[in-house]
C-alpha cells in the first residue's frame, strides 16, 4: 500500500440495511462507539471506526460484514447511511482501489476477514516483510494456470487424502509471497444457479516458485467429503486448466529480517504457508541467526502432510516438533501440549522482540493454542493478555484459521 493511496482511499465499513434486523448487538459491542442508529438504520461512523472487527462475530445476520472502497473525501456520512434502504454498489475506482485493501472482491475479503479473525484485532504485516502484490486477477478476469503435478502426501489407506498440487502460470505474471493465498474458481454452478464461491488456498511454495524460477506455485489441499472445491482440485490431472484469482493477503507474511525468530504452529493443511516460509528461509538465508520453530500436529505420522520431506529439513534450519494424537499405545498429544512441554523455550522466544508467532489450521485449534501460550506466559511472569495486542500491533502475531 503506498502512502498516497492510503491517504486518499478508505475501505469503509457498512451495514447492509436489507439484512440487518436492528438488534443493537453491534452498537452494544463496539468499543469505540462507532456504531449508531436512528429509527431506520444501524450505521457505522467512518470517522470513528478503527477496524477492530469486534462487531463482526457477534452479528447474528452477517449484515455487519460489508465494505466499500471509497475516496476518503467522499466517504458515506452517517446521515447518508440513515436514509438507505439498500447498500450502494462499489464504485469503480480503477486499479488504485486494489492497492488500498487486501482484496476488493467482497467474497474474498470476507474469507480473509474470517480466516484472520483469531488474530483478535487489526492484523498488521511484519515490519520487514516484502510488499505483496494483491488482487491482480479477479473472478471476471482470472488467470489461467495449468496443473503440473498432483501428489498425495499422506499415506495411502489413511482417512486424510491431502495433496500437493502444483500450478504453472506459464507466461502469465502471478507474483506471490509466502503466506499469501490464491483463489480458485470451481467450474459449474451451485444448486441455486449462481456460480460457485471462490475457494482460497495458501501458497505452499516460496516466492520464486515451487521450482526455482518456475513461475509456478504449490498448494496443499485436503479432500473434504462432498466438498465442491477440494474434490475439484484433488481430482485434477496433469495438464488440466484452472482459473485462478489473487494473489490475496497482505498481513500473514514472513519477516525478511535475518534476526527474526519465527514460531509456526499448525495442524493439517495449515502447514502450507509454513512449508513456504521454510523453503524461503532455506533458499534465501540458510545460515541466518533467527530461529525457525515448527509445532505441527496430526493424528498419525502417516496423516501428517509432507512427513517424509520434513524429516530431511536440517534442524539447523528448522526446529521441528511433530506431535500426534492417535498413536496406539501412546498418550494423545496436541500442539498445545507440546507448547506447554517446551514452556521454557517458548517463553524465551515470547520474551524476545524479534519473535513472530503464526497459527494456521482449523478454527478449532485456535483457543487451545492461545490458552497454551497464556499458560506459558503465566509460568514465566509474562502476561499474554498484554503481550498479544503488542505483538499484533507490531506485526508479530498472526492467525489464519478456517
Amino acid at each position: 500500500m503506498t502512502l498516497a493511496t492510503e491517504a486518499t482511499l478508505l475501505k469503509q465499513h457498512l451495514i447492509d440495511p436489507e439484512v440487518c434486523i436492528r438488534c443493537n448487538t453491534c452498537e452494544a459491542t463496539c468499543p469505540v462507539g462507532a456504531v449508531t442508529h436512528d429509527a431506520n438504520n444501524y450505521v457505522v461512523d467512518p470517522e470513528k471506526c478503527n477496524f477492530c472487527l469486534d462487531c463482526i462475530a457477534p452479528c447474528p445476520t452477517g449484515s455487519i460484514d460489508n465494505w466499500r472502497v471509497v475516496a476518503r473525501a467522499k466517504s458515506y456520512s452517517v446521515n447518508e447511511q440513515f436514509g438507505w434502504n439498500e447498500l450502494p454498489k462499489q464504485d469503480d475506482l480503477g486499479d488504485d482501489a486494489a492497492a488500498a485493501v487486501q482484496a476488493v472482491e467482497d467474497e474474498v475479503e470476507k474469507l480473509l476477514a474470517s480466516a484472520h479473525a483469531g488474530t483478535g484485532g487489526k492484523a498488521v504485516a511484519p515490519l520487514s516483510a516484502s510488499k505483496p502484490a494483491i488482487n491482480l486477477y479477479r473472478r471476471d478476469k482470472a488467470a489461467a494456470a495449468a496443473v503440473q503435478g498432483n501428489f498425495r502426501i499422506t499415506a495411502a489407506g489413511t482417512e486424510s487424502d491431502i495433496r500437493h498440487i502444483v500450478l504453472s502460470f506459464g507466461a502469465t505474471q502471478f507474483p506471490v509471497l509466502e503466506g499469501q493465498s490464491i483463489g480458485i474458481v470451481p467450474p459449474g454452478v451451485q444448486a441455486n444457479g449462481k456460480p460457485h464461491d471462490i475457494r482460497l488456498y495458501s501458497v505452499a511454495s516460496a516466492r520464486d516458485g515451487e521450482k526455482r524460477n518456475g513461475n509456478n506455485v504449490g498448494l496443499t489441499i485436503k479432500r473434504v467429503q462432498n466438498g465442491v472445491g477440494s474434490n475439484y482440485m484433488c481430482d485434477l490431472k496433469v495438464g488440466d486448466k484452472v482459473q485462478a484469482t489473487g494473489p490475496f493477503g497482505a498481513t500473514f507474511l514472513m519477516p525478511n529480517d535475518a534476526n527474526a525468530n519465527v514460531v509456526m504452529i499448525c495442524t493439517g493443511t495449515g502447514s502450507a504457508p509454513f512449508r513456504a516460509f521454510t523453503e524461503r528461509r532455506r533458499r534465501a538465508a540458510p545460515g541466518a541467526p533467527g530461529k525457525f520453530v515448527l509445532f505441527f500436529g496430526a493424528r498419525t505420522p502417516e496423516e501428517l502432510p509432507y512427513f517424509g520431506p520434513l524429516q530431511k529439513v536440517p534442524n539447523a534450519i528448522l526446529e521441528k516438533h511433530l506431535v500426534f494424537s492417535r498413536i496406539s499405545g501412546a498418550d494423545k498429544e496436541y500442539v498445545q501440549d507440546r507448547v506447554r512441554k517446551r514452556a521454557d523455550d517458548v517463553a524465551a522466544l515470547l520474551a524476545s522482540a524479534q519473535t513472530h508467532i503464526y497459527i494456521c489450521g482449523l478454527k478449532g485449534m485456535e483457543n487451545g493454542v492461545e490458552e497454551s501460550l497464556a499458560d506459558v506466559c503465566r509460568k514465566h511472569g509474562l502476561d499474554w493478555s498484554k503481550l498479544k495486542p503488542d505483538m499484533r500491533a507490531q506485526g508479530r502475531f498472526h492467525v489464519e484459521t478456517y
Partner: protein
Amino acid sequence: MTQTTSNMSASPAGAVDYTTKIPNNVNLASDNRVLKALEQWHPGYIDWWKTMGPEGFQTSDVYLRTAVSIDPKGWAKFDYVKMPEYRWGILLAPEDGERRVNFGAHKGEKAWNEVPGEYRAMLRRLVVIQGDTEPASVEQQRFLGKTAPSLYDMRNLFQINVEEGRHLWAMVYLLHKYFGKDGREEADGLLQRRSGDVDKPRMLGAFNEETPDWLSLFMFTFFTDRDGKMQLESLAQSGFDPMSRTCRFMLTEEAHHMFVGETGVGRTIERTCEAMKAAGIEDPFDLPRIRALGVIDLPTIQKKANLHYSLSLDLFGSEVSTNAANFYNAGLKGRFMETKIEDDHLLTGATYPVLKYIDGQIRTVDEPALTAINMRLRDDYSKDCQGGVSRWNRIIEKAGIKFALTLPNVAFNRAIGEFKSIEASPEGKLLTAEQWMQARDQWLPSKADGDYIASLMQPCWERGKFANWIAAPKIGIDNKGGDFEYVKVHRG
C-alpha cells in the same frame, strides 16, 4: 498474574473454564457447593434434552456456534457438534466493580452481589418465570426438524434450541447459587413442567401453544422471542448484579433468534411475491391461484402475525400492575434501556398513558408511571415489532404487489389484561361475541389455513436447496457458501 495455576477461570477476563463438567466463567471450580448441586442437576437436564429436545436428530452433526468466551472474538465459534454433546455453559457478562443500582428506591447504591433478604421471594419469582420459558420453547419446537425446508433452516432451529437450553442453565445457576433449598426445588421444577401438559403446564400461556409448522416457528421467534428480548433487557438493568450480567450475555444470543424469525418470515414473503409475479398474479387475495403455486399467500401470513402478536402481548401481563411497580421500586427489574432514558428513574410523581377499556370504550388514561411499567415495556415492544413489519413490507413493495402487513390493535384477541373480556377487530373496533365468532377466521388462521400450510411442510434436506415456499437467505451462517452442509443428518 504471577501465580501458576491450572485453574483457567483465573485466566484473563472472559475466558471459560472447561476443566469442570460445566463450562463456566464464574469460577465454579472454587465453589464446591454450587458445582456439586449443578452436577447433580446435570443428568436430569441431559435426560430432559434427549426426551424433549429435537426429535430424531440427536446423533446428527450440526454446524453450531458455541460460546468459548464472552469477549466479542470468542463467543461465536462455529463447528460441527452433536447436540447432546453441546457445551452448555454458565456465562456472565464481565463484572463492572463500579456498577450501581440505577433506578427505584435504592438508586445510587452499589449494585448487589448477594440477594437482599427482603427481595428474595420476588427475585426468585422473576428468575423462575424467565427460566420456565427457555425449556418450554424447546419442547414446543421439538418436531420441526423433520419438516425443515432446508439444512440451513434446520441448523438455525437447532442453534435456537441449544441456546434456549443454555439460557435454562443460566437461570438454574442463579437458583442454585443464590436461593438455597428453594432454588434447588425450583430448578428441579423447571425440568418437570411440560409445554402443553394438562397437569403440569409451563407457566405462561404462549409457551403452552403448539408450534405446528415453520411459519409458526418464524412468527414465534419474531414475536414471542422478542418478548423474551424485552424481558431480558429489563432484567439486565437489575440492581442484583449476577442477574444483570447473566441477562446481558443472554441478549447477545437472543439476537440470533430474532434474526431467524425476521428473515424466516421475510424469505417466506419474498418467495410468495416472486411466485406471484412469475405467474402474473397481481391480486394478493386470489387465494386459489396463489395456493396452486405452493406458496403461502400474504393474507394468511397476516393472520399468523395477528395470532402471534396478540399471544405475545399477553406475556407482558396486566397493563397496570403493582407487582411490576414493586419490582421496579425494589431495583430488581427496570425499563427497556433504563440507563438511556432521561428522567429521575424513581417515577414517584410521573404518569404514563395507558390504553384501557372504560365505559364500553377503548380510551387512553394517564396512570402512575410506576404501576404502568408493563404497559411501557409493551409499547417499546410494539415499536420494535413495527420496525420488522415495515421491513417485511419493503419486500412486498419492492416486488410491486399492493399489500401491506400491519400489527393488529392491542385489544384484538387478548386473554390477559384490560381487554381480556371483550372482543375487538384488528382495527380496534369493538364486537359482540357473535360478530367475533363470525369474523374470527378472517383474522386468525382457520383450520383450512393450517391444513394448507401443513401440506407444504415437506422436508428439503438436499444441500443448497430450499423448499418451494421459502426463498434462500441472502448470506449463509458464518459466511458459508450456498451449498454448505449445515447439518449432516445421516451421519453417526
